């Protein structure tokens, strides 16, 4: 057993020993690990609910649950996956783990606030779970909480809304922290032009978190007030306007989809150059397109509302702007692909996930174009095509990027390597199962099956069955992947500083990194993040 001799870095070094050393830590790496653990747990809960949804839909009519339970199931599935899994996933877990190291700092600007943000997350998660079991029954509004249904239903909507409010607060605190850190704590020589792309995307994301999240905060508060006072804020008969609710909701929730994808794009922009051993193609285009997505993403929210009764002029404007956001995404895809040109490509597990990301994201994103065009959205709106679209971008994009990040960086933070063969098997099953599941959903959506449907007409049976079977393949892949990573972290072979031969700062310090990251002396950076000349990969 080599355990005793291996170095354990921040896992052991701490001002406080034991469990308190974790619960009261202000170290960004430990907080990152806390986040990772909690959000993976939430992911597993949410994913099992997803499996239950698919099982119910294997045949028309009732199979395993009644309509009310089904409605609660997809609501909780959506709330968990969005607010508790994907929004915090990469920024809060890997952002915390890596942001300070990437810019050569000891920690983030506000370490205590960072811990507070994790506690807000935990409180939100606990309240959300409580809302499932509390008095009125699990919330059944869909994750969008549309009025007037959400103000009328007798389920625990207020509690769930408050939970989402806390999660939003947590996200805001992370955002404030990251913007400040990037501005204030870059080490000597870390110019804007030398920031790794991951940091650029985190920075853009953090701005969205700061400037958009409060809008969902006030929206949720209004729902709670409306439920307690019955004031009629969104009731047309009392001077309100139900469509305005949808504006407020999407003003946040559309930018939020870029909170989910941008950091993922950052991860892919780290992984691809490393495994092609070649500088990222078009660094500045990549950096600026991240900011462009963040900015333009705040201009397009009403594309979720083409069929809502909104004015036609608004449809014209928002449809136009929606297409504009697609352009920076296209730039990114083209740049990733051209980075491969004349490289030296190794298909290690993180790279496989990155390539799968590009494919899935392209399908999802191109599907987004059909949704962005006014005429076609009228047919596709609120059908399973939308469900397919967002699983492609959120799971196939955001989720796969998280898995890429886990395969890429977890060895760094645990000091141990997982089994590559098993990782490839898990990846293949996941990738194939994923595409079966969601391609079938897109197809059935084009045929006209509406979403949030407990029951469907018999014509849709076959495709739904295909989709359900696909979800089992995917489940198998996920279990293999998680099991392999877990075993690797516990008992894999120890690795050196730099197993992949990457050029960003974290690879120049021990694995796992020590408490102070860089020791007594702050680092001085003299080269860009993707200059691989002279970087040698350690054997592992």
């Amino acid at each position, binding site marked *: 057993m080599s355990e005793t001799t291996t170095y354990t870095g921040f896992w052991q070094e701490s*001002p406080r020993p034991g469990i308190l050393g974790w619960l009261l830590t202000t170290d960004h790496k430990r907080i990152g690990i806390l986040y990772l653990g909690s959000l993976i747990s939430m992911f597993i809960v949410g994913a099992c609910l997803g499996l239950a949804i698919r099982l119910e839909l294997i045949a028309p009519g009732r199979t395993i649950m009644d309509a009310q339970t089904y409605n609660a199931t997809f609501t909780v599935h959506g709330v968990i996956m969005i607010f508790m899994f994907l929004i915090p996933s990469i920024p809060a877990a890997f952002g915390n783990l890596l942001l300070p190291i990437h810019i050569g700092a*000891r*920690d983030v*600007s*506000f370490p205590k*606030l960072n811990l507070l943000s994790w506690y807000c997350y935990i409180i939100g998660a606990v309240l959300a779970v409580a809302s499932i079991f509390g008095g009125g029954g699990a919330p059944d509004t869909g994750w969008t909480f549309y009025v007037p249904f959400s103000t009328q239903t007798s389920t625990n909507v207020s509690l769930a809304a408050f939970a989402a409010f806390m999660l939003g607060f947590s996200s*805001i605190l992370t*955002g*404030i*922290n990251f*913007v*400040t850190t990037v*501005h*204030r*704590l870059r080490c000597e020589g870390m110019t804007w032009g030398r920031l790794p792309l991951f940091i650029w995307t985190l920075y853009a994301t953090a701005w969205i978190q*700061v*400037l*958009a*999240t*409060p*809008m969902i*905060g*006030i*929206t949720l*508060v*209004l729902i709670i*007030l409306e439920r307690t*006072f*019955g*004031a*009629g*804020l969104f009731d047309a*008969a*009392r*001077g*309100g*306007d139900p469509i*305005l609710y949808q*504006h*407020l909701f999407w003003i946040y929730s559309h930018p939020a989809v870029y909170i989910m994808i941008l950091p993922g794009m950052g991860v892919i922009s780290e992984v691809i150059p490393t495994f092609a051993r070649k500088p990222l193609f078009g660094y500045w285009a990549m950096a600026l397109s991240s900011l462009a997505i963040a900015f333009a993403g705040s201009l397009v929210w009403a594309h979720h509302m083409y069929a809502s009764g909104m004015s036609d002029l608004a449809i014209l404007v928002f449809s136009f702007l929606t297409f504009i956001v697609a352009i920076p995404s296209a730039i990114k895809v083209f740049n990733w692909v051209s980075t491969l040109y004349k490289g030296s490509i190794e298909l290690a597990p993180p790279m496989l996930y990155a390539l799968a990301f590009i494919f899935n994201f392209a399908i999802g994103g191109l599907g987004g174009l059909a949704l962005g065009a006014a005429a076609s959205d009228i047919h596709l709106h609120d059908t399973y095509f939308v469900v397919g679209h967002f699983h492609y971008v959120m799971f196939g994009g955001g989720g796969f990027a998280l898995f890429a990040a886990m395969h890429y960086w977890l060895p760094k933070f645990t000091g141990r390597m997982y089994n590559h063969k098993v990782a490839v098997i898990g990846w293949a099953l996941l990738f194939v199962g994923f595409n079966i599941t969601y391609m079938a959903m897109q197809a059935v959506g084009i045929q006209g099956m509406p979403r949030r449907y407990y029951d469907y007409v018999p014509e849709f049976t076959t495709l739904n069955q295909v989709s359900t079977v696909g979800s089992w393949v995917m489940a198998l892949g996920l279990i293999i992947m998680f099991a392999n990573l877990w075993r690797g972290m516990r008992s894999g072979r120890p690795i050196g500083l730099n197993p992949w031969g990457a050029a960003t700062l974290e690879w120049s310090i021990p694995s796992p990194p020590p*408490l*102070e990251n860089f020791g007594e002396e702050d680092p001085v950076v003299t080269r860009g993040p993707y200059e691989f000349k002279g970087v040698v990969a350690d054997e592992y």
Partner: protein
Amino acid sequence: MSIEHRDDTGDRFGMWLFLYTEVILFSGLFILYAMALAKFPQQYAEASHKLNIYFGSINTIVLLTSSLTIALAVSAIQMGRVKHCLNLCWVTVALAILFLVNKYFEWSAEISHGIYPGSEQLAEMGEGVTSFFNLYYFTAGLHGLHVLIGASLIGVVAVLTAKGKVTSDRYTLLENSALYWHLVDLVWIFLFPLYYLIL
């Protein structure tokens, strides 16, 4: 163990970012207001007359003055005049309480007239008026909550100042609380004309 890291500018910058989130938070209510005003200009003017302009104006003066005192407190601590600073902080807190007391009387008067969210009487006055008062109560209520938080914050900082934890060398805490307080004032600067002065 870790070397004390200090970045006052960074701390202030973080505070500004936080204030932006507060602005956006309130803006949700202002969006609702703007849309409803565009829809019911007449009824909004009518409803606005039902609010007591004296309460509103006095509260405006109270808040502006409290903003002055807390700004002075920051200058005082910078110049090392701790005693001055403490007095100014407590005056600010007192003004905040005055504001809330005023608000209390104003609201009780209105509620006793049957005007509050969800009331029957309100419903009879027409949709525009209902919408006006709904938004008025929610916006002013949220603002009142911020007054409460801001005043408590300043109270805590004043205690810390008295204990010597806030000094002419490190006063970011006071400065940031002052920033927060100014935000409370800023919101009111818009709230006041929009609700009390629509003609």
